[in-house]
């Protein structure tokens, strides 16, 4: 392993190297070798080998050209993680010795340099400060597929970027290639789309394009868009794409000209089109929203009206399960809800005894 990078440098020198503060060339009077620390010219191969062998700049060059995945987005992602565009090599190597971390969705990513080699690790950001020995450790990147399947309560996570990633695991020592595979298994295609966006090439498909493309049982969603109104799509985005529900930053809008009226979120990686969950939800909403509203008459006390609102809020915010058994001060408390049902529902389950079909 040692020296591999020196051989590679000597082999590449005739083409010239200019990368991350390292400049190497082979001219008629010998080799030139320049870094912020040293400046040699007219040296022979043996001298080149000697100076290269102890230069972190050469190891750095070798890593980025022979060890790191070469696919442009994976490469850029690894550069981003260690702040390669902001820090020169010397600063970076100093920082890497202690470890450089970043957050990607709910992932806590770290790259550390030891013995001149980069090592990568991934864990839940909530476990950032937990000792590795207290976590279940993994070394196969594809284990991430299983971890990503269920939340901490064992519930299935159909949306990989939902902020419900389970905790308690770590991938403590990954190579650069394994590392990007792991991240991509947790959050598929986020690296690719993040990179496309940075390059100004993110191919966003807005709501209208996406809905127009649907066929089969999802074709019906087309009928939900009528005239110029897009308030219904605001509701969809607020329901599904809010940062509390999905860590992608929604970049799709109603159409090319019409931005939605709700915030897209602040995630590191973009969402480029309505996902399958949103389309499945939209199919159901298209059916439900096809109904015309009716006037029902119920009598509620002011507290009962507020309690109905509190129950909807608790369910919508995923907080219903957190309300303590005896916390009867919360409208969405189970006993409070049962009392309301006992009082207001008739035997058929009709609120206020008012039939749904009138």
């Amino acid at each position, binding site marked *: 392993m040692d020296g591999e990078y020196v051989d590679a440098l000597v082999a590449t020198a005739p083409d010239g190297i200019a990368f991350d503060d390292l400049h190497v060339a082979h001219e008629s009077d010998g080799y030139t070798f320049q870094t912020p620390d040293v400046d040699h010219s007219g040296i022979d191969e043996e001298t080149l080998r000697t100076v290269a062998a102890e230069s972190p700049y050469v190891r750095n060059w070798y890593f980025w050209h022979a060890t790191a995945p070469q696919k442009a987005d994976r490469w850029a992602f690894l550069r981003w993680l260690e702040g390669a565009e902001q820090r020169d090599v010397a600063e970076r190597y100093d920082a890497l010795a202690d470890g450089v971390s970043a957050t990607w969705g709910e992932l806590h990513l770290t790259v550390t340099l030891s013995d001149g080699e980069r090592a990568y690790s991934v864990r839940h950001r909530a476990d950032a400060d937990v000792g590795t020995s207290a976590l279940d450790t993994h070394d196969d990147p594809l284990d991430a597929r299983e971890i990503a*399947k269920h939340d901490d309560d064992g519930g299935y996570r159909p949306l990989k970027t939902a902020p419900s990633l389970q905790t308690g695991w770590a991938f403590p020592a990954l190579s650069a290639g394994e590392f990007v595979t792991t991240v991509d298994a947790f959050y598929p295609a986020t690296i690719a789309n993040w990179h496309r966006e940075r390059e100004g090439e993110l191919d966003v498909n807005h709501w209208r394009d996406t809905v127009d493309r649907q066929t*089969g049982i999802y074709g019906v969603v087309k009928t939900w868009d009528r005239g110029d109104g897009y308030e219904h799509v605001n509701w969809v985005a607020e329901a599904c794409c809010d940062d509390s529900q999905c860590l992608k930053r929604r970049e799709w809008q109603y159409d090319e000209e019409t931005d939605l009226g709700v915030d897209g979120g602040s995630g590191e990686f973009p969402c480029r089109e309505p996902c*399958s969950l949103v389309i499945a939800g939209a199919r159901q909403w298209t059916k439900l929203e096809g109904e015309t509203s009716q006037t029902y008459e119920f009598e509620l006390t002011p507290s009962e009206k507020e309690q109905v609102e509190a129950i909807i809020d608790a369910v919508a915010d995923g907080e219903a399960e957190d309300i303590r058994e005896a916390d009867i001060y919360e409208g969405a408390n189970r006993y409070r809800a049962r009392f309301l049902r006992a009082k207001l529902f008739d035997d058929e389950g009709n609120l206020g005894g008012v039939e749904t079909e009138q």
Partner: protein
Amino acid sequence: MDEALVIAAHGSHLNAESSTPTYDHADTIRATGAFGEVRESFWKEEPSFREALRTVDAEEVYLVPLFISEGYFTEQVIPREFRLEDWDPELWDSDGTSATNATLAAEDTDQTVHYCGPVGTHDSMSDVIVQRAESVTGDPDVGDGFGLAVVGHGTERNENSAKAIQYHADRIRERDRFDEVQSLFMDEDPEVDDVADYFESDDIVVVPLFIADGFHTQEDIPEDMGLTDDYRTGYDVPTTVEGHDIWYAGAVGTEPLMADVVLERAADAGADVSSAIEQVREETGGAKPATGD
């Protein structure tokens, strides 16, 4: 750059296990090293059909649908979502069970995509059905004294769905291995509910031609056949129904030999994977002469 294999499967918003066979077969193929990359992709999960190709480095991709029948998904949804330029179902020149492959460009990534017919209509799928029967009975020579029922949806959702079931039932019948072979359906005659009426053999192996276990294979079919009144209480294998011993196999797609069919599809499209095929057959118990035709 190397070549990649991308498997396109349905996946589920509700059932965590729907993706499991896809992952398992991908892992089996990955372990052979036949492709530089092997990527799973899903209609309902991630990576989505829309974004799978951009996660793959290779310029050349073999795209194999892990679907049972040809039709709506393989002819419309997958080519559209993968943005395969100039796709036309005619390119497969299929009668509903004879899809081949077509080489197309992906519009968003410019990759060359060899778009293959689905696993379900490949000839080697017949072997997987037989192997499933061997697995569930624990008898590598199962056949004598046994009937085999191949079960599918029926035509309600897709006209070709029944064709794939019949195709394999016919092929297996021609091998004269089982005393009787019959295709049965969930939503049309001959119905799986009446399985006992369609066989004379005492023992009947029932193999549903589904990719993953789920609602249909774990709840509907066992209850329809009378293996149990309530799927949650489970059932024995075999269970005696109207004097027949029913050996219910669960989804054929969970059989490890399915990985072989994925490879066969890629091989038909030009991938150089013959040693991987041999390796997978050996590992998954499909080492015998494959189809005999």
